């Protein structure tokens, strides 16, 4: 079975020659991952995407019409960047545009991964939720969560394929499920399928030169899988493939999936030609208790920042003293704002005083970073702190006209709501489908039904 990964993330682009070569391989499936928690909690929290929709449309438009015409299954994981219903809706909008413009006809399954708070509270009370690190779950933090999704695994994708879907748009989905599901459904070894999927899900990151923005072919057989980059400028090497296996993982020998652990202790990597690496020996140890990873966010206030440079070495030498004074001044002068209703930080970027070569000119970047309970609070604190930092006087100061070089007017930037992860926990499930909801539909000559 031949499976294509368009790239590491829908909207990151890929080469046209890579796609052309991929179609020449007559693949059975084309997959693409469209999301991640790597960019932080904001995107799940806000319901927005971190990729540009024009770029997403380009990546879809080049590949989808040919895939439909040639009956190649098309699977998209973690739609819209974070995989909630709001994110799935963004992707379905773009997909609809492509379907209309090319008058496409296809059967579609949409897999939702949204989880209700009540479900999480019940699991929490039953002791079915376990921590994965330094994030503590409480009844309150569940209640405060504004959006919760489950990282679904292969089962909903397999079900959608069974139902005859040509295009499968998934909400939050384990990256590996995109590529492992069709292979496992076709009867291939799940250990090999998951290991192949883990390496492919970043596109051509396992090749030389590496790129998350290019096309990769994974071919699975009864006892091995082979990876081949589709852009002729790239090649897979044993070193790259084995090294990429451990990328972003906490353990190079085990890949943890809802269905079990992929044991890579006996994996063998072989260079079979100039461009391709064959892998064998990876084994799935099925989990006795199945788990799904839950991800949730909550609002943590509103942020306003001000960015400036300090060039005067004497000012740089006094910067901590200045900022301590500014914090005291803000607390005194904004006494109508509760001290607990904002955090005021100064982030410093650049040279320390000892790095200043000639003693005359330094370059320290500072960001005044305020998170307030409301936007009014963060904006008010930023305005006072910025003005006070600009004019703060200190012993031996010669630059009495100002301490900060602003590149921008306005100097203060409202960044809107701030979100934080409230949930990143493992949840024991009876059935890995219990957080999945599949909706079937499709397009006929570019019209949705």
């Amino acid at each position, binding site marked *: 079975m031949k499976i294509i990964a368009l790239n590491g993330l829908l909207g990151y682009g890929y080469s046209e020659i890579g796609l052309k070569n991929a179609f020449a391989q007559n693949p059975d499936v084309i997959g693409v991952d469209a999301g991640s928690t790597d960019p*932080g909690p904001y995107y799940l929290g806000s319901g927005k995407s971190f990729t540009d929709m024009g770029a997403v449309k380009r990546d879809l438009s080049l590949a989808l019409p040919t895939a439909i015409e040639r009956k190649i299954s098309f699977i998209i994981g973690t739609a819209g960047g974070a995989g909630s219903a709001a994110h799935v809706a963004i992707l379905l909008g773009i997909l609809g545009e492509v379907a209309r413009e090319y008058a496409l006809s296809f059967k579609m399954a949409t897999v939702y991964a949204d989880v209700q708070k009540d479900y999480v509270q019940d699991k929490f009370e039953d002791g079915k939720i376990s921590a994965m*690190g*330094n994030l503590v779950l409480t009844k309150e933090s569940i209640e405060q969560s504004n959006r919760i999704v489950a990282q679904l695994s292969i089962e909903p994708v397999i079900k959608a394929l069974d139902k005859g879907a040509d295009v499968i748009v998934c909400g939050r989905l384990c990256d590996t499920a995109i590529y492992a599901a069709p292979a496992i459904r076709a009867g291939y070894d799940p250990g090999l399928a998951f290991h192949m999927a883990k390496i492919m899900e970043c596109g051509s990151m396992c090749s030389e030169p590496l790129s998350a923005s290019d096309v990769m072919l994974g071919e699975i057989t009864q006892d091995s899988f082979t990876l081949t980059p589709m852009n002729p400028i790239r090649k897979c090497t044993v070193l790259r493939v084995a*090294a990429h296996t*451990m990328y972003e993982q906490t*353990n190079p*020998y085990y890949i943890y999936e809802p269905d079990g652990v992929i044991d890579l202790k006996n994996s063998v990597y072989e260079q079979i030609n100039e461009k391709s690496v064959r892998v064998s020996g990876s084994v799935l140890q099925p989990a006795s208790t199945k788990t799904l990873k839950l991800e949730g966010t909550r609002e*943590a206030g509103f942020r306003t920042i001000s960015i400036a440079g300090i060039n005067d070495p004497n000012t740089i030498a006094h910067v901590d003293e200045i900022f301590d004074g500014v914090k005291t001044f803000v607390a005194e002068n904004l006494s109508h704002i509760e001290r607990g209703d904002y*955090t005021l930080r100064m982030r410093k970027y650049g040279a320390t005083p000892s790095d200043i070569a000639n003693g005359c000119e330094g370059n320290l970047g500072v960001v005044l970073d305020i998170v307030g309970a409301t936007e009014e609070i963060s904006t008010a604190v930023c305005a006072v702190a910025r003005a006070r930092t600009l004019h703060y006087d200190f012993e031996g100061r010669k630059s009495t006209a100002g301490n900060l070089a602003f590149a921008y007017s306005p100097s203060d930037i409202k960044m809107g709501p701030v979100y*934080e992860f409230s949930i990143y926990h493992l949840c024991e499930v009876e059935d890995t489908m219990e957080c999945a909801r599949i909706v079937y539909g499709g397009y006929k000559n570019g019209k949705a039904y």
Partner: protein
Amino acid sequence: MAKLIDTARILRSKNAGPLYITFDIMFDTRGQLDTALKVINEKLIADLYDVAEQDVSIIPYEVVNSVKVTIPRANVSGDVLDNDIYGCQQHVKMACINI
């Protein structure tokens, strides 16, 4: 004695989910890896990154002459106090380890 950054072919850090930072230290030869493994231990990493020793994971990955080190993040990704969402600049504290 040499600095880790000069001996290692790759020295990188990356978020592994929002709760962990993982470091990949790759060498050209098995000999270099073995030399590094004599120095890189839980106490050294715990002191460098201000985490508890029992929270440090060090796993040699000999197939690519590498060692993987993983620690919990001091701040969850994107928390108000976090300063490196992708965790990809956290390796520099290891750069000057003498091996």
